[in-house]
């Protein structure tokens, strides 16, 4: 029963968190500040117009706009009637735009905007609003390591953060969870360029190669070609192995792991190697069944030599696997735990650590960010628990409470539809009295 209620509140809480900080996700996803961007939060006042509140709990830019986005660097995009514009942190109009659709890079140093007259997309510097890439493109996507991907119809090019061209706008693109791949066909070969996070760009020229996603989950990009013996060979960026049809083909990929089949003299042996995408083996087992859940947990059954079966759980994001008994859950902090039947004891995947929650009489567990930060409720009153202590109790009338994605804040909504924000340590940052009904 308890397990079920956690799942339900997870979903609800996720919705709340998303509403508060999810509308223009590209600019509010940051590892440093999930609620305040450049010290401000775009917020809707009492169900009407939008403005900005500061982390001091004040409305610093009046709620006079029809639409707003979160700040990226020094600028945000707002809509006033039919006019769209870029404003600075004092609320001054800096430039008119064709729409308030903006996106920004992870570091919030570059913003893509639609220029007012042409309606085309370009990139500006988030510090001084100067053009870094002229508005001549149909779409812009910010890649890893500061790269800008700019597209004209189905042709894509790559530019660095200062607008210098790395690849001309003549490539096809596959953006994958493991790498961003840009390729084009020449007379005989395929030229493939890999942009992998944390590594220098790499290039491969292979006759007859095709780029595609591996079957499975998580959009893992690979390329394949037929070798001189007529076998299909698959290769992955950052992985020196060749996965050959009839020898060691990739069965499926899940986020950061993959199952590789083993063949002996042309027949599958039934053993599969669970590998990280770079080819490192995690474990080799006679895996038989695979169930993949949306919280990036893969459950596998494996046959032992004596005929018994054993359950495995794989954290496909963290690329860790272990044998477990019991069901695994992924908490808000992205760690994976095996939960006990009563929902109170959590054991890490490798079995090394465990945590037991102490819940008093009539206390319900509402939302878990981590094993030390969670929300409980008793008789309709929500409490934020952090590092083993109750750090804040929310007022009566609060309906939903949840940690933000990064666990730095807790957002709450009351029965009047107003939001409040607390830091994870329980300090209130924004109160229900500010009449915030939605956030950018």
């Amino acid at each position, binding site marked *: 029963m308890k397990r079920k209620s956690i799942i339900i509140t997870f979903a609800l809480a996720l919705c709340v968190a998303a509403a508060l900080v999810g509308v223009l996700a590209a600019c509010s996803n940051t590892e440093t500040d999930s609620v305040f961007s450049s010290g401000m939060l775009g917020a809707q006042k009492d169900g009407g117009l939008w403005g900005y509140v500061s982390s001091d709990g004040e409305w610093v830019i009046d709620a006079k706009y029809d639409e707003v986005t979160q700040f990226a660097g020094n600028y945000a995009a707002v809509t006033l009637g039919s006019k769209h514009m870029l404003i600075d942190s004092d609320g001054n109009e800096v430039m008119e735009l064709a729409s308030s659709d903006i996106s920004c890079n992870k570091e919030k140093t570059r913003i893509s905007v639609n220029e007012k007259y042409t309606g085309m997309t370009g990139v500006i510097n988030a510090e001084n609003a100067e053009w870094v890439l002229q508005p001549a493109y149909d779409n812009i996507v910010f890649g890893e390591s500061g790269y800008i991907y700019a597209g*004209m*119809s189905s042709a894509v090019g790559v530019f660095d953060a200062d607008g210098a061209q790395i690849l001309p706008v003549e490539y096809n693109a596959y953006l994958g969870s493991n790498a961003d791949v840009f390729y084009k066909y020449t007379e005989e070969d395929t030229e493939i360029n890999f942009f992998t996070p944390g590594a220098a760009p790499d290039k491969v020229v292979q006759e007859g190669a095709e780029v595609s996603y591996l079957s499975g989950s998580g959009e893992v990009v690979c390329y394949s070609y037929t070798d001189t013996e007529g076998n299909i060979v698959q290769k992955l960026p950052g992985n020196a192995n060749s996965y050959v049809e009839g020898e060691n083909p990739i069965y499926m990929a899940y986020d950061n792991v993959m199952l590789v089949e083993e063949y002996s003299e042309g027949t599958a042996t039934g053993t599969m190697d669970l590998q990280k995408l770079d080819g490192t083996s995690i474990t080799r087992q006679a895996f038989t069944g695979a169930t993949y859940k949306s919280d990036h947990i893969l459950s596998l059954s494996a046959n032992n030599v004596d005929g018994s079966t054993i359950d495995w759980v794989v954290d496909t994001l963290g690329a860790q696997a272990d044998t477990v008994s019991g069901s695994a859950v992924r908490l808000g902090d992205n760690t994976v735990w095996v939960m006990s039947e009563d929902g109170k004891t959590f054991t890490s995947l490798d079995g090394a650590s465990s945590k037991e929650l102490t819940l008093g009489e009539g206390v319900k567990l509402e939302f878990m960010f981590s094993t030390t930060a969670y929300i409980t409720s008793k008789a309709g009153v929500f409490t934020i628990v952090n590092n083993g202590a109750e750090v804040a109790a929310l007022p009566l009338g609060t309906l939903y409470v949840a940690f933000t994605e990064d666990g730095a804040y807790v957002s709450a909504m009351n029965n009047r539809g107003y939001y409040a924000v607390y830091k994870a340590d329980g300090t209130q940052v924004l109160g229900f009295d500010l009449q915030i009904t939605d956030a950018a």
Partner: protein
Amino acid sequence: MKKKILLPAAVLLLLCIALTGVLTACNKGENTGVFASGVIPVQDEYGYWGYADSNGEIVIPCEYNYATAFNGEYAAAGRGSASYVIDSSGKQVAGPFGSVVLFGNDAIVSDLGADGYYIYTLSSGERSEIFDRYEYLPEPEAVRIETDASGGIVAEYRSVEGGAVQPADENASFFVQGSTQYIFEFGSMAVAGATNYAEPGECSVYNLETSTVANYAGVTDITPMPSADAAVCAAVTSSDAEGNTRVDFILPDGTFINGVYDVSLTDSVPGVTLARVAYNDAEKADGYFLFNDKAVLWQGEDISALNAPLLGSCYYTEEEGAFTFYTEYGAFTHTPEQIDGATVSFSSCTLAGEGAIAVSYAVIPAEGDISYRNVLLRLNEQGFAEVSDVSAFAEKKLSVVYVTEEWNLIVRNNLSGRYGVTDISGDTVVDIVYTGVRPLGGDFYAVKMGNAESVYKVGSGELMPFIFTAVCPEEAL
């Protein structure tokens, strides 16, 4: 001494600033090609038209609903129901009129709220007599003016030459009297007359190029023969004093075909019509005529000599390895490079701008790989087809969309969907990044980026920022 030399320059600079107010206005703008009169019509973000110089600075504010380009001193611009003739400073030198169409120093205008038109000479303010209707014929440049009279219409043709509407030629005026009246043009021919089976009338067939006229009496039927929307030829039925019926089939270049009893037209190729003529004489075989609006391109009795249109784009014939393509622009003959034992297979022939066609074909040798060719054919003044091989463009993912008068190519990148201009050898002349490109003549092109347009000059790039919704509209009369 040195001081004396320096001072005048400083004074000049100060004068310049004082007179124009802004230092940048001293920048010399373009004054050639499309900027010959210094300004071009531009449309602002609110949809209003005005004029700007080549730097994009507004010279005549955007207050009009339409504005034509300047031809010499004058342009026409309208606001609401009123149209004006303006000069390059924006001064309204004539008007308000109900409508204005400029022909250099003359204009055909109508007064506000009044019916009827007249020719207005801008320099003198002189007005011609009033007429009821007119129609501008761009090729050859002429105007047909009609005045209603009792029992019919007085129609006349006036040519437009030297920037003025010339007085009518005595041959060019017809009184079309009768119950069913016709006046229509096709190619360089015009037919005016009336038909009435009970009371046969008169008909005049006028050649606008040569100003000659052929008159018929006893006309019982005039049939304009249309292809798509407009007449491409005519059949005139008349009977002589003895009651013998005669049908004349008239083609756009003035060819008369007599002794006809039936004509049928096929129109499967743009701008080219195939006519099958059956003669009164049973011993005479049917005649086939293939023509555009200027000339008969091919004629013969054996229709099988004419190959069916390539993908609906043009008819062609072959003679000893030379292929002749019959198009809206004329007949183009091309002999593909001969390779022993190879056959040539054409895949398409498309119109590619003023007087040019793009032809794709495959050369299939007895042995070895098939090679694919894309060539551009353009007629020069002598009527010969100039050929340029653009097969290499396909490798660069470029398609040729239009061939300009200067033999430059407006191309489209098939991957990015963007347009630009290259010269005949494929070197880029206008960057292939724009969402649209239009030739404006010479080195000037109108380039479009999303919702805004600018003017691009070869060698200089974009002359003005993208702040106008449209520049240099196509003239529509």
